[in-house]
């Protein structure tokens, strides 16, 4: 028993160390009857292994209430042992003297691993009183020398005593015993717990003594010796037991003694005990915990364990191959750590190093690698031997067996740990079983077994539906409320306890799911992170249909949790299902499965490959413009539905087009995630998405297609292109901008927007932008419109509206100051209405502005105030103007007659040609007459000269004034109506020859000039 304890003691203690022990009156009562004695017997198993482990009888009448999970087995063992002991006590002493002798060699006082007896079972055997019979004196007197004799005497005494008892006494004893058992049974039924033989204040105290860690056992041995010496010397000891707790409480040992002085005198002078540190008395209620045993996870074949020893393999994962029948040894399979003599000093004496292993230092271990006989042969041929033939060869290398690359090792069961194994995936890879078809499969059962133990509270979250499947409360269903460590609080949903909250250890819980629940695999298998719907539940195995692959998988319910409505696999991955990825320069593939480390990819040749995430160079993504043609030559685009021609006739939606290959998806196909690859040439289009898009109407958030221009150039009309030889060539120009600014030159050649210029100044040809040139008249130096267009007239017609700005810009103020408003005002207002309106609305305000200023000067605004129209003129408009315009005397008369009609003209003319006043005056009358007959054309023509005339006025300052004035006037005179038009418009024409205007009176040309475009074009040069 104690050997068992020692083993478990080396593992971490996960039991609750300080549970509140239950004490009832039974215990108190029973404890009064406590009789203490050292146990003389020991159990058979531990024989030679644990020579220093006597055991302690705490109490005869008390019962063990260990709730430890391992209680059952251990108790049974104890029971058996008890039985044996008691039998021996009663009658076997004589029959088995050898055994007795062997055991009695141990010190009866000390118990390294004390244990609590199970009273109940003893009682059932009906012989507990026999144990009581041992005479206390024996304890003190016994020595190694007289042990045998003592046994015999003991038996004799017992027999004597039995004989002396009369029947009545025996009856009484039995009665008492069974009465007690009934009471116990009753109290057990009531309390629901097994009464415990708990220590009380009346018992000897237990002290915890600080010792050098690792030396606990040695000290216990030393104390044993010391007690022997004391006993030989006949000294009273007062110490009942000494024990240590194995690996659980290193650095402490415990001593049970009546008084502190007894304890101190015993430990005084013993090595490795730290006497300087105070000894701690363990409180009464904590004492039972010192004896608490921990359950040891039983080893099973095929299970994964962690190695504890030897140090070379400490912590390594191993698989149990066989558990030997003695229960102490097992054979494990592990991945060897061998260096095949690489780090070995060839000259060192063999085994010399082993004599003094490095202490406290960890040697660097060779990495885990499967056994390689070639490596071993290189240096250690002598250590290697081979058995078996090709298929199942196994090697013996340096005294160890290797099979299939694994080290097969026999170890003691306490060299391995079956708890908290938690195998990692990379460790498991070694243990993957390679099947006949080359696929590697892990032994999932073994993995599950290993991981099942790892279940902790963290796999439960509040709100889980759970069922208790083990223990007293088996079958209770509820939802978890909270999880604290390994204890889950759950609210019961059904049954008698409905609505109550109960607590249950995680170990006894399993998650409860129902058909159709949407769940996610959260661990424990290769299906981790899969999401699916539950289709079948059998025990704690749940079958679910994966969302991603549409296949059914079976996992343990503990590995599942209820999933959010939508969840994706491998969220931490850069890759998503159905990504098109570049595998190498020539190969692309579509991801059909995303695992943690591995992508399964369907490549363009329809092969499925498993590649690491890192092997993917890029995600190609979808090319929106990719197009393929089907076998009929029809266009295939992404998202079109196609059907394979011939073959399996598969159909599906095109998700990627790559160089004529189509990656087609069809959810109903199960293999490769519903994806397959076909050539565009091998499919026919079923339905084009583009067709659907049209049917569904335009996208309202984009520009209305009905508004979109038809054809490529359906925007604004481009300016007309000149055909043939560029008119600009040969023209004299001046450069307006840039380094050559102001230089005169001749255009030698043009090319698009550039022109080659030969400069006058130096014999040099430069290329310069056309728009930086101004065409000059070679004779006058006058800027001119070079009329690059086809329609020379038009450019002049443009001159007509173009003139207007001249008015606005330069003249108006000038007029305002110099001239009489009324006459001016008359001009525009009269003639304008029809004529000017046609030319462009933009001008009117300009005129208005001009009008008003002038009026202001006049004081004649009353007339105009109403509106700038003829009404005003009919009345005083004319008169006022006359009054104001002294210089117009001549005109006035003529106007007098005109008044009713178009006063405007008179004014207009006056204004324009103030210098040649008289002559105009005459004109105007004639004009006005014409106008009277046909006012509209008159209106049209009339203002134009007015508008035009000022232009020279402007230039008049420089020089040209006479020119234009002279030239047009005759034209006007000769043919008033048409002449007017031509003459007026031909401002420049005048320079060439006076005849031109007269000769070219094309009225048709007039019809056009309104087009605003040319006018704008023309204006620029004019302004300069």
């Amino acid at each position, binding site marked *: 028993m104690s050997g068992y304890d020692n083993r478990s003691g080396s593992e971490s203690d996960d039991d609750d160390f300080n549970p509140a022990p239950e004490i009832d009156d039974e215990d108190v009562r029973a404890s009064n009857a406590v009789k203490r004695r050292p146990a003389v017997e020991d159990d058979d198993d531990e024989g030679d292994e644990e020579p220093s482990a006597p055991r302690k009888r705490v109490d005869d009448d008390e019962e063990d209430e260990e709730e430890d999970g391992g209680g059952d087995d251990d108790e049974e063992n104890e029971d058996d042992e008890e039985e044996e002991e008691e039998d021996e006590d009663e009658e076997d002493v004589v029959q088995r003297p050898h055994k007795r002798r062997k055991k009695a060699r141990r010190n009866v006082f000390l118990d390294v691993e004390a244990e609590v007896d199970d009273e109940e079972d003893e009682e059932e055997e009906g012989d507990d009183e026999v144990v009581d019979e041992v005479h206390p004196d024996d304890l003190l007197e016994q020595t190694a020398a007289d042990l045998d004799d003592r046994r015999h005497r003991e038996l004799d005494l017992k027999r004597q005593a039995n004989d002396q008892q009369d029947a009545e006494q025996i009856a009484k004893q039995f009665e008492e015993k069974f009465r007690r058992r009934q009471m116990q049974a009753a109290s057990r039924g009531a309390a629901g717990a097994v009464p415990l033989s708990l220590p009380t204040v009346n018992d000897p105290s237990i002290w915890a003594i600080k010792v050098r860690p690792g030396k606990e056992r040695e000290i216990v041995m030393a104390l044993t010796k010391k007690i022997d010496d004391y006993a030989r010397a006949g000294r009273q000891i007062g110490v009942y037991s000494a024990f240590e707790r194995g690996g659980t409480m290193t650095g402490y040992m415990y001593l049970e003694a009546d008084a502190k002085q007894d304890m101190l005198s015993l430990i005084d002078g013993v090595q490795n005990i730290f006497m300087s540190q105070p000894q701690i008395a363990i409180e009464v209620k904590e004492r039972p915990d010192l004896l608490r045993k921990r359950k040891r996870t039983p080893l099973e074949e095929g299970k994964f364990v962690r190695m504890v020893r030897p140090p070379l393999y400490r912590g390594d994962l191993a698989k149990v191959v066989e558990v030997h029948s003695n229960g102490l040894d097992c054979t494990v399979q592990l991945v060897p750590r061998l260096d095949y003599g690489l780090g070995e000093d060839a000259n060192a004496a063999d085994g010399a190093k082993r004599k003094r292993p490095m202490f406290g230092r960890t040697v660097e271990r060779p990495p885990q690698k499967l056994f390689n006989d070639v490596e071993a042969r290189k240096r250690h041929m002598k250590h290697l031997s081979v058995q078996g033939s090709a298929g199942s060869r196994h090697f013996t290398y340096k005294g160890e067996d290797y099979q299939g690359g694994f080290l097969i090792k026999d170890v003691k069961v306490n060299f391995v740990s079956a708890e908290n194994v938690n195998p990692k995936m990379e460790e498991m890879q070694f243990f993957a079983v390679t099947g006949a078809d080359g696929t590697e499969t892990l032994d999932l059962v073994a993995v599950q077994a290993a991981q099942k133990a790892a279940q902790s509270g963290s796999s439960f979250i509040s709100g889980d539906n759970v069922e208790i499947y083990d223990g007293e409360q088996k079958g209770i269903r509820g939802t978890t409320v909270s999880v604290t460590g390994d204890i889950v609080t759950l609210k019961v949903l059904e049954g008698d306890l409905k609505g109550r909250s109960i607590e249950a250890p995680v170990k006894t819980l399993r998650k409860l799911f*129902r*058909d*159709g*629940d*949407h769940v996610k695999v959260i661990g424990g298998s290769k299906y981790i992170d899969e999401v699916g*719907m*539950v*289709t*079948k539940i059998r025990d704690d195995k749940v*079958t679910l*249909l994966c*969302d991603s692959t*549409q*296949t*059914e998988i079976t996992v343990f319910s503990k590995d599942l949790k209820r999933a959010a*409505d*939508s969840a994706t696999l491998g969220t931490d991955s850069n890759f998503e299902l159905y990504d098109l990825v570049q595998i190498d320069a020539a190969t692309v593939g579509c991801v059909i499965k995303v695992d943690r480390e591995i992508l399964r990819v369907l490549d363009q040749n329809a092969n499925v490959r498993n590649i690491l995430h890192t092997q993917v160079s890029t995600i190609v993504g979808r090319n929106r413009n990719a197009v393929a043609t089907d076998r009929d030559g029809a266009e295939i685009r992404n998202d079109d539905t196609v059907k394979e021609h011939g073959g399996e006739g598969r159909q599906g939606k095109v998700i990627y087009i790559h160089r004529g290959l189509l990656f087609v998806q069809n*959810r*109903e196909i*199960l293999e490769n995630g519903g994806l397959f690859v076909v050539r565009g040439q091998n499919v026919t289009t079923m339905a084009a998405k583009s067709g659907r898009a049209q049917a*569904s*109407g335009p996208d*309202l*958030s*984009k*520009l*209305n297609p*009905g*508004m979109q221009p038809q054809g490529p150039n359906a925007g604004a009309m481009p300016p007309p292109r000149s055909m043939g030889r560029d008119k600009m060539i040969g023209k004299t120009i001046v450069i307006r901008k840039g380094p050559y600014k102001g230089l005169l030159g001749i255009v030698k050649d043009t090319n698009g927007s550039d022109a080659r210029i030969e400069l006058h100044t130096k014999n040099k040809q430069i290329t310069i932008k056309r728009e930086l040139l101004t065409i000059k008249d070679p004779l006058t130096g006058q800027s001119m419109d070079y009329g690059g267009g086809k329609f020379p007239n038009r450019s002049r017609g443009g001159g007509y509206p173009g003139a207007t700005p001249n008015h606005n810009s330069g003249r108006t103020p000038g007029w305002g100051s110099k001239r009489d408003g009324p006459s001016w005002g008359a001009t525009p207002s009269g003639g304008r209405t029809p004529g000017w309106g046609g030319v462009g609305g933009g001008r009117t305000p300009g005129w208005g502005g001009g009008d008003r200023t002038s009026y202001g000067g006049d004081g004649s605004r009353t007339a105009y105030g109403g509106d700038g129209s003829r009404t005003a003129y009919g009345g005083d408009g004319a008169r006022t103007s006359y009054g104001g315009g002294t210089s117009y005397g001549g005109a006035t008369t003529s106007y007098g007659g005109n008044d009713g009609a178009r006063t405007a003209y008179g004014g207009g003319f006056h204004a324009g040609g103030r210098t040649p006043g008289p002559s105009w005056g005459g004109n105007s009358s004639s004009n006005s007459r014409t106008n009277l007959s046909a006012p509209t054309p008159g209106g049209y023509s009339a203002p134009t000269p007015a508008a035009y005339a000022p232009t020279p006025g402007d230039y008049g300052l420089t020089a040209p004034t006479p020119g234009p004035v002279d030239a047009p006037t005759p034209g006007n005179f000769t043919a008033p109506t048409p002449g007017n038009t031509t003459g007026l418009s031909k401002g420049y024409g005048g320079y060439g020859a006076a005849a031109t205007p007269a000769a070219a009176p094309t009225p048709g040309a007039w019809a056009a000039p309104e087009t605003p475009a040319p006018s704008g074009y023309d204006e620029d040069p004019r302004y300069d």
Partner: protein
Amino acid sequence: MFFLKELEKIIQLHPSYFGPLIRSHIHRELLTKEEGSNTGKFTIVCILDNFDISEGQVIPGSGSAEYTVHYKAIVWRPYKGEVVDGVVTSVIGSGFFVDCGSLQAFVGRAMIPSEINFDSNATPPQWTDNGDQVIEKGANIRIKIKGLRTEVDRMYAIGTIKEDYLGPLQS
């Protein structure tokens, strides 16, 4: 189960659509985009004609106008436990898929009565009890929904035919 449900949709209109036909544009948009769509909880089967278009509001920065349309529609929402009819779309060894209108359902092997077995040798493959119950692609079938999963624009279900009156319909 079918319901009459009041719904609301916000439609954005490019300025080029502003004009006398705004209403018809919106109406058409509503019908083409909403009818037959799935919100993840239900499918809009039919939009009733009288709907209410709010005043348009121009979105700052884009010039588009936003219209809130209130309308009523007949919607279909499947429930756990509901019995629906559908058409088998695919038959595989682990069960078969059924299309119930907009809902795709899977009936797994565990949800099929034990007397109906998979026959992979038949063409097309089928689940059959070697009697009059034949489940093959295109068959009409009545299933009961055991579980529902919804995504943003789709619904999936697990169905069963392992109860009375469920299974292939005689056509």
